[in-house]
């Protein structure tokens, strides 16, 4: 077996220091991801114009859903920005890509265990005072059914550089998961952001685990309402939380969503390592 070198951080007795670690080759396809969007794979991108605007991004995961945008002014840009020499998609705060079948994404809120991993940067400064959602099915509204994920730094929300998960059940004010994990995500620089969810866990803290880059895993959800097993209100949207709410300003390199038996901390960490080795984030 040929081993690869990955960047990691090790404890040297006094501090965490970067180090190169030998790791067995990891193929994301081994995890059978439901969602795998890869901006570095040009074969998955359909675009037109200068700068090139994306009308379709093909999912390399198991859900046979493409993410599309027919309206030119709402199409993200490709071919303009790179990270670690790899192409990324740029979103300007009014760009979204939509899937079409709501039932494909029911597992994001119906109690299924899964994780989300994304290589992403948001904002253009150190204090955006904004909510930038990178994907979702509920438009954040609690009267809707679904789940959404965002960077949250609004003054009104009294949060700073938070990773926000909002899982809703179609009942105003009641949430299976709703948490802002503060001071986890630095704007205007690249991050590998991960959220491991077990929405039916009896202990609320175990329902949502956020880990960004090589940081700690935070389990701070205190919401404990039962999940909805209905279809989500909207099909999954990338670049906003669905219904065009909370559109992000920033760039996406790659997104994974893995559900079921493969949705473990160990596999989540493998994907973190894979994304970091590929995109050179931390």
């Amino acid at each position, binding site marked *: 077996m040929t081993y690869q070198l990955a960047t990691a951080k090790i404890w040297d007795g006094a501090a965490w220091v970067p180090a190169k670690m030998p790791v067995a080759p990891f193929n994301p396809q081994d995890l059978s991801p439901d969602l795998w969007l890869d901006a570095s794979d*040009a074969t998955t991108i359909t675009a037109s114009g200068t700068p090139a605007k994306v009308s379709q991004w093909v999912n390399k995961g198991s859900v046979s859903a*493409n993410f599309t945008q*027919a*309206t030119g002014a709402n199409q993200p840009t490709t071919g303009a920005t790179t990270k670690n020499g790899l192409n990324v998609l740029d979103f300007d705060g009014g760009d979204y890509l939509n899937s079409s079948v709501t039932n494909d994404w029911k597992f994001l809120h119906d109690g299924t265990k899964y994780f989300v991993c994304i290589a992403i940067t948001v904002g253009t400064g150190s204090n955006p005072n904004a909510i930038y959602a990178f994907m979702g099915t509920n438009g954040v509204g*609690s009267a809707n059914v679904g789940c959404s994920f965002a960077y949250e730094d609004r003054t009104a929300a009294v949060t700073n550089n938070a990773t926000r998960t909002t899982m809703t059940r179609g009942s105003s004010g009641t949430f299976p998961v709703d948490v802002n994990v503060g001071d986890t995500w630095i704007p205007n620089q690249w991050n590998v952001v991960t959220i491991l969810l077990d929405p039916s866990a009896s202990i*609320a803290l175990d329902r949502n685990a956020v880990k960004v880059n090589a940081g700690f895993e935070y389990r701070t959800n205190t*919401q404990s309402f039962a999940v909805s097993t209905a279809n989500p209100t909207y099909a999954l949207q990338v670049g906003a939380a669905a219904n065009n709410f909370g559109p992000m300003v920033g760039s996406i390199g790659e997104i994974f969503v893995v559900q079921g038996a493969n949705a473990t901390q160990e596999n989540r960490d493998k994907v973190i390592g894979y994304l970091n080795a590929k995109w050179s984030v931390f």
Partner: protein
Amino acid sequence: MWRQWTSLADFDSWHDAACAALGIPHPGFNAATGEVDEDAQWTTAYTEAVEVSPDDWRAVVEDDVTELVPEGLGVPCDPPPYVEPELNADSDTAHSDLDDVIEALGFDRSELEAELDADEA
């Protein structure tokens, strides 16, 4: 930049001209091969108007299109009024604050701090 029209008909008239100038509808190209992909999503519109009121229609228009199709272009305006979906009140939202975690686990912070002080001593 957001632009404002006083009627949907005025917006539609400008939008039709913009689509004609931009060659919309049109297919996209595969980013790897550069070949036209007829089966992938086409671009079928340039922008979408948001109704603020019956005489207030607003849409995003990019600078290059503003220059390309100036006739009938709406006037610059603010984005549509922001109607935020219902969000959880901050008091209902868990944060990563240590106090939240301590409370959720049923500990008393002062007791924990006393234990830490004793350990350090």
